[in-house]
């Protein structure tokens, strides 16, 4: 499971719906959530996570994307299976997250270890895995 340490920067609320902004070593991340625990407030340190199967990758990207979370990363590990590829991606902050994509995509994009890519995660795919401290 992928994990990122981040600090709550802002909580936007509308009825039971929330959008939480996090600061992850200078990068801003957005998370969409329904009811949120009251303890999730500005300044709180948390561990964020997402399913590796929900992490997309872009290379030489041009144009606009609706993804709220677009992070620069370097491919540090690439394992090709029969149908799928598993990638480890090191963010500028030093955290490593995983991505599982089809091998077809990996080959089409000619992904290589050491390469710079853009990691794409929708706001509804990020969740708080653990509250670390205030």
């Amino acid at each position, binding site marked *: 499971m992928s994990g990122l340490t981040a600090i709550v920067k802002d909580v936007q609320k509308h*009825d*039971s*719906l929330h959008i939480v902004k996090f600061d992850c070593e200078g990068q801003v991340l957005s998370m969409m959530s*329904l*009811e949120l625990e009251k303890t999730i407030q500005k300044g709180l340190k948390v561990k964020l*996570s997402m*399913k590796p199967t*929900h992490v997309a990758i872009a290379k030489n990207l041009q144009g606009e994307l609706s993804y709220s979370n677009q992070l620069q990363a370097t491919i540090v590990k690439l394992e090709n299976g029969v149908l799928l590829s598993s990638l480890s991606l090191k963010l500028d902050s030093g955290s490593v997250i995983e991505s599982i994509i089809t091998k077809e995509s990996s080959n089409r994009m000619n992904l290589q270890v050491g390469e710079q890519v853009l990691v794409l995660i929708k706001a509804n795919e990020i*969740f708080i*895995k653990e509250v670390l401290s205030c």
Partner: protein
Amino acid sequence: MININIQKTLHGSSGEMDLKVDLSIVQNDFVALTGQSGSGKTTLLRILAGLEESRGVIEVGDEIWQDSNKRIYLAPQKRKIGFVFQDYALFSNMSVEDNLLFVKKDRELASHLLEITGLALLKNRHTSTLSGGQKQRVSLCRAMMNSPKLLLMDEPLSALDPSMRTKLQNEILSLHKEFATTTIMVSHDPSEIYRLANRAVVLNLGQVINEGTPKEILLQTSGSAKFSFEGELLDIIKVDVIHVAVIAIAQQIVEVVVSQEEIKRLSIGQIVRVSTKAFSPTISE
């Protein structure tokens, strides 16, 4: 090979019902027999044990246990079966060891069985002084005393708490393997069926309606979704441009985000299936 082809008219709570089972079981198979209560599971076990008569044929290997056309009905004590009941059915005025020796005067086998089920120290105790889990171990040992070709178990663990159940499941499995017996177990517990059986048979109103590997039978899927539960739609709450469906599943309430289009097909009180692909759920301790 065990061939079962039997028929019997049962008078159940919902009227007459035909129990009609045509089943072949490979030797050493562990078959879970499941289905709603009143579907004929216990009656089928009793017919196999020779405790009830029926029409048709029961062949176990090269022995014929029953052939109603030839008026053959082998007496229960002549069939090599072991039977484990839900309520233990032990002789409470006898010691643990005597309960086993009653079946067969084989002290060596009795002490071996008591050893592997951790009962050796209790062999002189009266069974009335034992806990539920210990009693069911004794009845399991007793069922193995005549090295059964067919081990029949009728919800053997349903009266026990979950941790005891897991322990006994392991013992049942090791006895099944050590004695190379063929086992048919009535069970309603999916985890038990998955852990023990290599084949599951679903009985409904006296008929086999489904059979296959436990995974094929138990995995509730809809389309490509592998994570699927049935529940009651309790409420739909509009939030911003989305809607939140509140659904009761088992003893819990869950929430699912649905779109404007999706709610058109839903109405409160409806029984719905909540599912997602196997890629989405996360697991935590």
